[in-house]
């Protein structure tokens, strides 16, 4: 059992919660959570009911070609992270996107991307087995890991392998035979969609019975003439999955070096709740371990870009600005829907390199120096660094507000969160 954090939130606690779970926020937003219980503060952020921002100007159907459609879709999501009313939902969807990675290049359909992101948003607080099944049946994933090519007699193992290795059990907890047998269970899973003959056909999962191998299979010690649904059920319900996901959540949200007993405690919550993500995340974000982990995560490029804009309340508008933000994120290797490979992003210290540090410094200049940043020093360090009184305050306080913001953003402290 994870020890719950028993105090009401201090200013630093509130800033920590907002930075870690919700891409950061303004000093005003942070102050509004002070004095609340960890549960109440979390409930406020964990409200995933708001619909997408109606002012989102990006519509992939406006695109002149596929490449442009992909870019517009990426910008659309970025806009939602920056301006949406449920930033915690977007950050969680991004975590899950890194987990169930796909890329625009191979998926090649804005409609499939839209469905995929919709699944991540809609099921992110549901049981993990439900989420995994929905993702496994999404045309984006069927295409990305080639299950649309997986047919009786000549199975394609790509999806079955990654399901075990990356989505559920983790490497070392299954055999090559399990992969081969599971690939057979997923035969016949594919999708249909618009074509020249039927331009308005719905893009959706279909089960092609004729292509399905309904023979007997042995998977992770269980025997039966399993289908893909069975494999997802067996894999997501496996005890190793609880541990694998608990560890991954800790690394993403809490600390690059989680304590083994903390991971075991979260895995226990996972097992008892049958992978109910709402219960698991609530236990995590109200735990004393979470609140004791300030500045123990290396800030990702996406947190750097989105978090800075939100903290400084920068007036980011216009298609050109978003294209420029996406170029920055692409250069830093962290553009949404464009992961380096099927394992998503490694995170942690891998974000630190010469080129990346330099690019962050250049981004900091473009965010602050020509913009009208007018925040006072306390608000600035609270929103950016999570405290009104940091070691930087006395060094920067005589400079102009844009210079202060710039220096905070290029400090080693801002490399963490």
């Amino acid at each position, binding site marked *: 059992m994870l020890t719950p954090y028993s105090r009401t939130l201090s200013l630093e606690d509130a800033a920590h919660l907002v930075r870690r779970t919700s891409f950061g926020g303004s000093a005003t937003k942070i102050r509004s959570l002070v004095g609340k219980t960890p549960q109440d503060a979390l409930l406020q952020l964990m409200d995933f009911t708001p619909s997408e921002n109606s002012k989102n100007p990006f519509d992939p159907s406006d695109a002149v070609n596929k490449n442009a459609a992909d870019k517009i879709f990426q910008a659309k999501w970025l806009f939602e992270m920056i301006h949406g009313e449920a930033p915690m939902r977007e950050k969680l969807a991004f975590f899950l996107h890194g987990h169930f990675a796909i890329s625009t290049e191979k998926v090649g359909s804005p409609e499939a991307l839209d469905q995929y992101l919709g699944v991540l948003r809609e099921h992110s607080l549901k049981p993990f087995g439900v989420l995994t099944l929905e993702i496994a049946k999404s045309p984006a994933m069927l295409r990305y890991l080639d299950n649309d090519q997986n047919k009786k007699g000549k199975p394609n193992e790509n999806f079955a392998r990654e399901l075990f290795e990356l989505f559920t059990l983790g*490497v070392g907890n299954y055999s090559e035979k399990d992969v081969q047998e599971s690939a057979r269970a997923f035969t016949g899973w594919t999708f249909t969609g618009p074509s020249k003959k039927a331009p308005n056909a719905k893009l959706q999962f279909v089960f092609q019975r004729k292509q399905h191998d309904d023979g007997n299979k042995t998977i992770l010690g269980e025997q039966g003439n399993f289908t893909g649904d069975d494999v997802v059920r067996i894999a997501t319900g496996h005890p190793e999955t609880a541990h694998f996901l608990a560890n991954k959540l800790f690394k993403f949200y809490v600390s690059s070096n989680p304590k083994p007993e903390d991971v075991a405690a979260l895995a226990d919550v996972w097992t008892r709740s049958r992978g109910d993500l709402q219960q698991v995340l609530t236990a995590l974000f109200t735990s004393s371990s979470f609140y004791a982990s300030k500045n123990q995560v290396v800030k990702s490029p996406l947190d750097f870009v989105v978090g800075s804009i939100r903290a400084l309340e920068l007036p980011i508008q216009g298609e050109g600005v978003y294209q420029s933000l996406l170029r920055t994120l692409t250069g830093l290797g962290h553009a949404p829907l464009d992961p380096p490979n099927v394992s998503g992003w490694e995170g942690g210290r891998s974000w630190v390199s010469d080129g*990346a540090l*330099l690019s962050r410094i250049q981004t900091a200049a473009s965010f602050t120096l020509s913009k009208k940043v007018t925040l006072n020093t306390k608000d600035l360090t609270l929103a950016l660094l999570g405290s009104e009184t940091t070691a930087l305050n006395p060094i920067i306080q005589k400079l102009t507000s844009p210079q202060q913001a710039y*220096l905070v953003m290029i400090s080693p402290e801002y*490399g963490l969160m």
Partner: protein
Amino acid sequence: MKRREFLKISSLAISLTTGMPAFLARAAAQAQSMAGDKILVVIQLSGGNDGLNTLVPYANGAYYAARPNIAIPKQEVLTLSSSLGLHPSMKPLMRFWDTGKLALLESVGYPNPNRSHFSSMAIWHSGDVTGASKEGWIGRIAETIGDPFCATNFGSVTPLALRTNELILPSIDNLDKFQLKLPQGTEKAFEQIMGLPRQNDAEFVAQATRHMISNTAKVQQNLSKYKAGASYPENNKFAAKLKELARLVAANTGQRILYTDIGSFDTHAGQRADQDRLLGEFSSGIDAFMKDLDSQGLGDKVMVLAFSEFGRRVAENDSAGTDHGQGGVMFVLGAGVKGGIYGDSPDLEKLNQGDVVYKQDFRGVYARVLDNWLKIPSKTIMGAEFTAPAFTV
């Protein structure tokens, strides 16, 4: 410029040795005892390059029987021997073969092959076949010779190969933007901020920032030494990266190992279109790169080593692709190479779970390059003795 001099250079007068790991501080004070001027360019073919369609066993009926849709027809193969030939997209590399500068190593892998991209890649990066080590083989070179700038990755994220627990070697993704200019009025405050005491991850980031400042200054001072000597193929991202590597080689700022990647070779479906294109980009890029270096009198300093995390399944799948396999093909090319085909060709009648059986341990290939080209004792880096055929001069 000598290394000792550049260590003093810093646009901000921030001491590089402050907070430096002890082994590096020690080494920085030493002469360049293990330094040499030979350069190794390591190219990672990400995703698992299919070896059988790269070095094609065109006289083997079993090859054609296993791949009715995706085999390379005999008449298209670039003949190297009575049984083997290169994929037709690799024509630009034939000039290296003809002059004895291209070595191909067959059936390369390691014991207990792992078919996961990430596990297998980690094994190739660390040289630890259990996959447990988080220390890259090139990172260990940097620690051993005590030079945090001896290797550079060209890309945005430094791969495991160039990392150790204490050290992350530099990554550069754009040489022209690789410079730090602080706006007027912020320099002094920045220097004070960098001077604050720190621990753990904060110190790690601070140290990386100091390294970056010093590294950018050094590279910028030397980039003008490059004189373009070849035109690189257009619409070829890999070739564009090699051009930047050529500029770094010409800058002569002490990098002995340069690392970059091309991909994805993960051809589960529609293999021919993707692999044909990638092998073409790979080959034409390297051709231009070596021409460029030759024209600047630098060609005899550079050896190129290319690897992939595994080969692919011998039999094609129903998607005109191939699934993850085991043994694969490595290339070594350029200066210091004794051309030829080394190792045993895969026995397509005797497979392991449908895969080519590995016969040559990749660590032996690293070892030979370390000992004979970089002149760095391989046993220190690899932790044991490994052998490979004599593909170096």
